[in-house]
């Protein structure tokens, strides 16, 4: 196996043998399990708590689409914030602990080091999103009695593209910024900027900034063209990873 493959295998094995196996999976699994149940019983809960304060306003019964929307909303907020915080040290933690020095004084290029991390962590995020979506799908079917696959899986796939873009962005920020919390803060800043940019329609339609909104719209059963946003996001992710490799290549370790 090449140095890249060996290092990638290390990244993969590290996940189940460290805290990484607990944080993001626990968060996503929690929302995947509670989401459909909460969606199903939200009208009853609101009615029970509000009593006669609703003044005769009728809350419509929830549908499977509410369950789907809840899952995507949780992915886009808590899930993404957790991802940003967790990957704030994806590069800098190895530089700080000295493990990067032991690896990079062996026949492994710095580009391989970066790419292996992005590939494995993106695969991990993909696995988690797929597992969470599967749980949401199954529980929605149980709770609501119907669960068409299209809206849920298409919206989750669109969010996944956004999540992978953020894995790449956090890799770049972590290569640039030595502090884990500093990189996480910068990552949150990028998220806020993208959210604001997405409000402007041209960017919302044709750039990665539109992905969260498009994902949410798909979850409601709407028809949305996501091609340009997804393509530009993937292209941007590649550019960001190349930049991260270049930054690390010029960095004193």
């Amino acid at each position, binding site marked *: *196996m*090449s*140095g890249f493959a*060996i*290092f990638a295998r*290390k990244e993969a094995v*590290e996940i189940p*043998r*460290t805290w990484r196996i607990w944080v993001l999976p626990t968060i996503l699994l929690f929302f995947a399990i509670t989401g459909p149940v909460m969606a199903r019983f939200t009208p009853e809960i609101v009615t029970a708590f509000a009593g006669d304060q609703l003044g005769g306003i009728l809350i419509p019964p929830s549908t499977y689409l509410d369950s789907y929307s809840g899952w995507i909303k949780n992915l886009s907020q808590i899930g993404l914030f957790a991802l940003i915080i967790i990957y704030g040290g994806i590069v800098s933690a*190895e530089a700080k*602990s*000295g*493990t*990067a*020095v*032991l*690896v*990079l*004084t*062996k*026949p*492994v*290029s710095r580009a391989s080091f970066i790419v292996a991390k992005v590939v494995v962590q993106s695969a991990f995020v993909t696995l988690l999103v797929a597992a969470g979506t599967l749980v949401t799908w199954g529980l929605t079917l149980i709770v609501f009695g119907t669960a068409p696959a299209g809206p849920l899986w298409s919206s989750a796939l669109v969010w996944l593209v956004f999540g992978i873009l953020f894995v790449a962005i956090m890799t770049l920020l972590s290569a640039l910024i030595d502090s884990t919390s500093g990189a996480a803060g910068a990552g949150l800043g990028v998220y806020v900027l993208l959210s604001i940019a997405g409000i402007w329609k041209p960017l919302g339609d044709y750039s990665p900034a539109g992905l969260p909104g498009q994902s949410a719209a798909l979850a409601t059963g709407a028809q949305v063209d996501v091609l340009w946003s997804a393509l530009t996001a993937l292209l941007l992710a590649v550019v960001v990873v190349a930049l991260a490799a270049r930054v690390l290549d*010029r960095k*004193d*370790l």
Partner: protein
Amino acid sequence: MTAAIETTGLTKIYGDKLALDSVDLLVEEGSVFGFLGANGAGKTTMLRLLTGLTQPTSGSMKIVGQNVETAGNAVRAQIGVLPDVPGFYDWMTAGEFLRFAGGLFGIEQKILAARSQLLLDQAGLGDVTARIGGFSRGMKQRLGIAQALINAPRLLLLDEPTSALDPVGRKDILDMIAALRGRTTVFFSTHILGDVERVCDTVAILDHGRIVARAPIHELKARYGRQKVFVEVTSGADALAEEVRRQVWANAVSTGSTGPEPTAGDSTGGTIEITVCDVAAARRDIPALVAARGLGLTRFEAGEMGLEEVFVELVGQVQR
């Protein structure tokens, strides 16, 4: 024969700090080379440059005949590196880390398994199944040397491998390095003169980023291998110092200032610090001198000259 290391005008500047100043260095293949310098002299910077972890401001460097900056993996495939504080994946076991390190060199699985076990046994870690996170500093250093040897390197670069180790750990590491003589070239940075004297053939001394001396170790020992003796008496320290000064083995004698404080409650006692050229004679004669004067001897200790003192001997006249 190809030089293991060859640097020409190697310079590194961090901001406004000159870390290495036009270093020309040649390390012959097969030698155990000591790279001496006080903390902050530039030793780690030199190691970081040689391993490609940082780029030089100017100058060039070759390892086993290949340019470090351009050869990349071709150079890294031929070296083994132990940083001053090696960072391991704490969740791995020692065996897992060696197999991981060997895998990065593309070593075939069967060879790697056998070599890993051999190196673990040599490092005294053959039976250790605990994760690296639970290792002592000494165990990590021994594992550090083992991982640096996993590719049977032509050049082994060790950055202060014995610093911060207890005497047993230090001995273990020095024994491992000494055992490598004739098998590979070892470039070994340290600020501990005793370690260099024990295992190295040749030494270079780095001071404020400049090489101020380079000599075979036997030559250095012959020139500067004097030792110090500390004597503390209950009274009559000045008179005893005068008598010691007249002895042929005494190069320099001073009282009071550099040794420990005089024994409490005795104003006439004190410490005498003697630089000697024949420590055996000093050990034999000093107790006799103290006894002849009827003095009480509270401390009698022989120690090696510190690096700073050797520096004074070697480079005191060098103008900066």
